[in-house]
């Protein structure tokens, strides 16, 4: 009886020792040397794994940062400049500030200004709808309103407004990761600089049709009339294929183009409410 117990203990211990030795030498032989800094950088990053940086996730981005000589071209949109500064400080390199960006919806054709010409009753997906036809309004470029951008957003920052049928961006939550830009089959959403104190001006339309056709399909379409281009003192506005585009690096936020636009296709965001001129005149008279 005792011999059996002793024999069992001895044989199992021996077996454990032999296997432990094999494991130890195998682990030594095939050891993967990894830079310990990768782990540290990863803890600095926000850990959203959104892929907005262009890497597969935060770990891959951390690896990219550690391996790269400088941080040029590497940017975490979720963490922004603060996070990048921390990463740069840890790695002992310098990093230039990048202007914070925000997703901008370049379609303002709501249910009133852009009437429906057909009813879509298929699967609720912009991608499927765009695959089938040009859309349920006469505008071939405009928002399809099925909400692929809302589904793609990891941060709950873009929401469909049922009243207008258009998506709206919550700029506090938007991290400019670019997921909605990729999800939109009509390429309506663009990442633009947030601007000083969030003030920005952009053309909220991507209709490339001739003025008459665009105007017929949507009351607030850009008709390519070049009025904004003429009024702009900073050469920030270019017009190609009947569509105006404002370069956010050149725009000085003077807002002249906003007043000039005959179809109200140019939007200003986060500016103080402008008091119409005639009303002020009336007030003075009183």
């Amino acid at each position, binding site marked *: 009886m005792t011999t059996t117990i002793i024999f069992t203990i001895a044989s199992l211990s021996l077996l454990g020792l032999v296997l432990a030795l094999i494991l130890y030498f195998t682990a030594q032989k095939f050891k993967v040397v990894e830079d310990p800094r990768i782990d540290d950088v990863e803890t600095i990053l926000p850990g959203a794994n959104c892929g907005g940086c262009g890497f597969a996730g935060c770990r891959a981005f951390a690896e990219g940062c550690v391996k790269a000589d400088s941080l040029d071209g590497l940017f975490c949109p979720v963490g922004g400049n603060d996070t990048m500064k921390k990463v740069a400080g840890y790695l002992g390199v310098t990093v230039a500030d990048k202007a914070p960006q925000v997703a901008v919806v370049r379609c303002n054709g709501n249910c009133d200004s852009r009437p429906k010409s057909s009813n879509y*009753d*298929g699967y609720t*997906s912009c*991608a499927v709808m765009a695959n*089938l*036809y040009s859309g349920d309004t006469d505008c*071939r470029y405009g928002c399809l309103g099925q909400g692929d951008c809302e589904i793609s957003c990891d941060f709950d920052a873009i929401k469909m407004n049922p009243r207008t049928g258009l998506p709206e961006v919550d700029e506090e939550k938007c991290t400019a990761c670019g997921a909605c830009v990729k999800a939109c089959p009509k390429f309506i959403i663009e990442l633009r600089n947030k601007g000083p104190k969030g003030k920005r001006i952009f053309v909220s339309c991507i209709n490339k049709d001739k003025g008459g056709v665009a105007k017929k399909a949507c009351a607030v379409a850009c008709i390519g009339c070049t009025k904004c281009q003429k009024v702009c003192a900073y050469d920030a506005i270019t017009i190609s294929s009947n569509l105006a585009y404002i370069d956010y690096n050149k725009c000085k936020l003077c807002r002249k183009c906003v007043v000039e636009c005959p179809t109200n296709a140019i939007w200003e965001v986060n500016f103080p409410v402008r008091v119409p001129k005639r009303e002020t005149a009336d007030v003075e008279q009183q």
Partner: protein
Amino acid sequence: MSKTFSIGGIHPKDNKISVKAAIENFPVMETAYISMSQHLGAPAEPIVAKGDKVKTGQLIAKANGFISANIHSSVSGTVSAIELMPDLAGNLVQHVVVKVEGDEWDEKIDRSPEIVREIKLSPSEIIAKIADCGIVGLGGAAFPTHIKLSPPPGKKAEFLVMNGAECEPYLTSDYRIMLENPEEILIGTRIMMIALGVKKAYVGIEDNKPKAIKAMKELCSKSYRDIKIVSLQKKYPQGGEKQLIDAILGRQVPSMGLPIDTGVVVQNVGTALAVYEAVQKNKPLFEGVVTVTGKCMTEQRNFRMRVGTTFESMLFAVGGFPKDAEKLVSGGPMMGKAVARIEAASVKSTSALLLLTEEETKRKPEGNCIRCAKCVDACPMGLEPFLLNRLSRAGRIDDLEANLVQDCIECGSCLYVCPANIPLLDTIRLSKASVLKIMRSRPKK
């Protein structure tokens, strides 16, 4: 016992309510809108300018590239514009707009009613003639016929299979031409047999068209012994070329393969009629038979209609838009395309204008998959639609390719049988497009 294809298939109610309506000529419209993109492949290049006078049957646009087809004027009159106009899906396509003045046909076209039986041309002359006359497959895909009739080097056709199945519900245009022009179809078939150098042809007709089978069989037993009429069981999608080859010859087209890989070329009976008219009568393809039908309509019609007729004028001819019609479809209810713009014009391969009521077309809310496998049973390609749907929603492109999403023929059988109303076809079609795009961008081995 009639033959049919081996796997999958569904039995929708055939609703062929326009069978008794004989083909009548549709009045020539005031303005014709002739699309430059009526075929698969590159759009044709217009060779007329604004203000030019054109005759019916005159060449107005040349094929542009290898897969493309010539386009002829369907009316006589003056070219009033060459401009971008929306097609039925609202996408802009270049159109030649012709203001109609009278109806003067090109002198070369033989308009006599006699049937020309003797085939004088050599195979290469036939193919050149077909290419000149801009014949495209009238089964739906509108693939240029002359390319189908010239198999790639190293591949030889053994049989010609003619598709007279017309498995789509509602459509009767092929049935009417088989009934009214059977001999022309058989001569057209024989012309294509000469062009391909094959000795035997089969015409597959579903057994819900006994009159057409009888008419064709009688003619074949008399003077067209090399063409065999095969009666097929009624089952959708029998008209798909892979299904038709399986049904008639029992051969399987390999994955991503073409019918020619099994030594078969498939053509539609409508194409045969167009080939006959082109080769024997010198008449280019500028008109075709269009069924205008729907349960909500008081009368069902089969029209011989010029290319470039707007859907609006078709509706006008049958007495306007019925009150309970909810959806317009160009083609059959299973694979046809919804008409989003009624000002769009018909093209060569337009086979029907179908009006559906709300009851027929309304989608029910989507439920959960209950793993009943009805879609697997229904899929004529042996795929697993429920799995493809899940993979496609998850965006797993590699797994989609491994599960052969690229073989989907988009027949819609899975969507038809699904008790949970899952939009299987919509999601599968979307992922099929992205998988095919990736497969094509790979370097060829």
